[in-house]
């Protein structure tokens, strides 16, 4: 009875992803190997969770430019808690996540409460959180070594790291929340017509604050993963990350105007970005070509995705005939 729309919506994106994988596999003998995929698996958790938070923010027609800085702030806090204060990892993680949550809360509270464009508020936070990261670390990278290794190293039984498992869990839960819960509906509704939501007796302000707080929290979680991956707390981490995150979300078809989006597609967007980067690096193409190709593929992916509906229908028809 219910129409399952997702598969055909994701189809264009999956096709782009597969085409890229195919292309790189043909171009580079090393691409289609377990090692490459393990490498990818190490890289994507951070961008994944941050892009999930960004998906929610874009859904309510906001934007969060501060994610890269907030991530750096959170890993800075964790680094200092472990290296300078000698606290155990769980305490550090808690401190990091709380920092992220607070930064997000401020973003949300200021923008929702005073109706200031989130672009401006989070641009301010981009500077503030970066300053904070420099402040707490005194602009010095902290090396943490084995203290944080557990986050990023594969669990023997599963062959994948806790970071990746958590990141995928975040994707699944976030998609579930978006499509099945009251909160998800409210996000879509606020992104579509905030005034209508208000006039239906639902105060959009707390929900918006919640969304930004979650985005901050997920940036913090991204910081945790980054820490596990690099075993280093670097106050300069994540410069420009906001653009990659937004790119992943938008490639995934979420509208910048709000009201429409999918977390799963965001994840495919993250994979597309990661595959392009990895593939080009493995081919060792020159920096100018790398830039030009990356740019062209981003545009092409979205362009191709425009045609996902016709392509989806066509494929759907084919499949059902068989």
């Amino acid at each position: 009875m219910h129409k399952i729309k997702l598969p055909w919506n994701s189809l264009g994106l999956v096709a782009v992803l597969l085409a890229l994988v195919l292309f790189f596999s043909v171009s580079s003998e090393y691409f289609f190997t377990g090692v490459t995929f393990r490498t990818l698996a190490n890289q994507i958790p951070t961008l994944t969770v941050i892009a999930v938070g960004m998906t929610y923010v874009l859904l309510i027609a906001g934007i969060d430019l501060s994610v890269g800085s907030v991530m750096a702030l959170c890993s800075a806090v964790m680094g200092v808690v472990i290296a300078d204060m000698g606290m155990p990892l769980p305490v550090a993680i808690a401190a990091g996540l709380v920092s992220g949550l607070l930064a997000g809360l401020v973003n949300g509270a200021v923008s929702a409460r005073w109706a200031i464009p989130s672009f401006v508020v989070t641009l301010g936070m981009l500077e503030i959180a970066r300053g904070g990261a420099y402040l707490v670390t005194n602009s010095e990278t902290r090396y943490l070594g084995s203290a944080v290794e557990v986050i990023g190293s594969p669990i023997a039984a599963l062959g994948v790291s806790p970071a990746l498992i958590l990141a995928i869990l975040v994707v699944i839960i976030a998609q579930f929340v978006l499509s099945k819960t009251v909160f998800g509906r409210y996000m879509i509704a606020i992104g579509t017509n905030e005034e209508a939501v208000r006039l239906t007796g639902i105060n959009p302000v707390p929900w918006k604050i919640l969304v930004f707080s979650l985005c901050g929290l997920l940036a913090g979680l991204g910081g945790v993963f980054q820490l596990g991956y690099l075993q280093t707390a670097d106050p300069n981490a994540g410069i420009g990350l906001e653009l990659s995150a937004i790119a992943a979300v938008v490639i995934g078809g979420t509208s910048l105007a709000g009201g429409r989006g999918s977390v799963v597609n965001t994840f495919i967007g993250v994979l597309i970005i990661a595959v392009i980067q990895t593939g080009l690096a493995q081919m060792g193409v020159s920096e100018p070509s790398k830039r030009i190709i990356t740019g062209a593929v981003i545009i092409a992916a979205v362009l191709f995705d425009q045609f996902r509906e016709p392509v989806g229908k066509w494929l759907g028809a084919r499949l059902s005939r068989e």
Partner: protein
Amino acid sequence: MYKSFASPVLTNLDLDILPGEIHALMGSNGAGKSTLCNLITGIHPPNAGNMEFDGQPHAPATLKAAETIGIQMVMQELNLFPTLSVAENLSFSSLGGRAGLINHSSVVERARHMLAQLEMDDMDPETPVSALGVGHQQLIEIARAISQDVKLLILDEPTASLTDPQIETLFKRLNAMREKGVSVIYISHRMDEIARIADRVSVLRDGELVATLAIADAAPDTIVNLMAGELPEQDEHSSHKTSAETSAEVLLRVEGLSVAGSIDNVSFDIRAGEVLGIGGLIGSGRTELLRAIFGADKASGGRLKFASDGLSSSRLMQSPREAIAAGIGLVVEDRKDQGLLLGDTISSNICLGQLQGLSNRAGVIAADKEAAMATDAAQELQIKYDDLQQPVTQLSGGNQQKVLIARWLLNDLPILLFDEPTRGVDARAKASIQALLRELAAKGKAVVVVSSETDELIKVSDRILVMSNGRHAGEFNAADVTEEQLLEASFKHYSKAQHA
């Protein structure tokens, strides 16, 4: 002619419009009237069939193409630019003077002229459109269309949010145009208008042309029968009405309500089991009044006293949320901007306010409960749809209105405010909404209805309050008031205001 979206909308339609005639198009919501007009004006291409205009084959690729050969349309939904001024909206496609500069004075001058055609001389052409109510916005759209050099004018529910005096003016213009040989396609759900203005009537049902009649042969009953079969049984509602003197319980007492710039010191009672109609001219502050009661806008003064605490303590609503908690609901006037989630499904739109109740403690929505709730609500209001998961934008205007009403009925609040609830709703649905309003009152609810249709007000209300220039201009017992009395009251405070 044939047109299909998800499912066929228009099938095998043959229709001709004679020069110099006003041809009314009638049909229930979703019958395909707007779609037909979209085909004629090139907004959508037909899937099959052909048209002829002025002896030439007619297949406009774009609206622009249709306009260049003299076809103008006023669409059902407003298409104005809120941040631009009235004058700029009126001349939008011909703003240019020399070198792309806007010839400000001539644009304003032209605007004055265009406004004068609809006797709106007192409107400042430089006001931004966003500062106008829906009714005025609709007039702007009409003024824009009729001022062009036009051979065929299409008006898609032009009077939906107009009050009687404006309708009079519009009809005067239309009659003058007819004399000059202009053809008009006139879509309306108001039977009395059709009888007064149209030469012939065509009735659409489910995308098919049922009949074309000369107006003389088109008694309202005939048309309604052609449209959709029988009207719902008209109960003799006036007998159910509580008379103004009855001591029905006052649920809400509005005292001295004021809103800076639009409402001045308005007091009245809202009673259980009664329909209170609110009349007045466009811009008289009716919408503002409802919004202020509902907490959608800040009131600058006044009190609300609720029966729930013995009419003793008094407060103003700070937000719609608070108003709902206090038992007040508002079905807004501008469904597109303030009511519906246009990108979302019918079902989401209906259930938006009920999600908390449809979900478990973790906030997960029970999909089956939601579907059942939406289906029930849609059936109760006879919404015409293919699938509840369809985007609400695919519904006809009237059905969109019903979706909005359905949302509020689910809340089951004791006090319901309706701002133009039957705007753009077909005769059958209008009758059923009117019956619904009565029914709600009969169930003991307090119903407040703002309407620009005087006959509707008289028909549906127990009491009628008339607003004039933001002020209370009298209350009447609906059983014995005349249209003239109401009209007189609506002008009451304007002359004084001008002299002051």
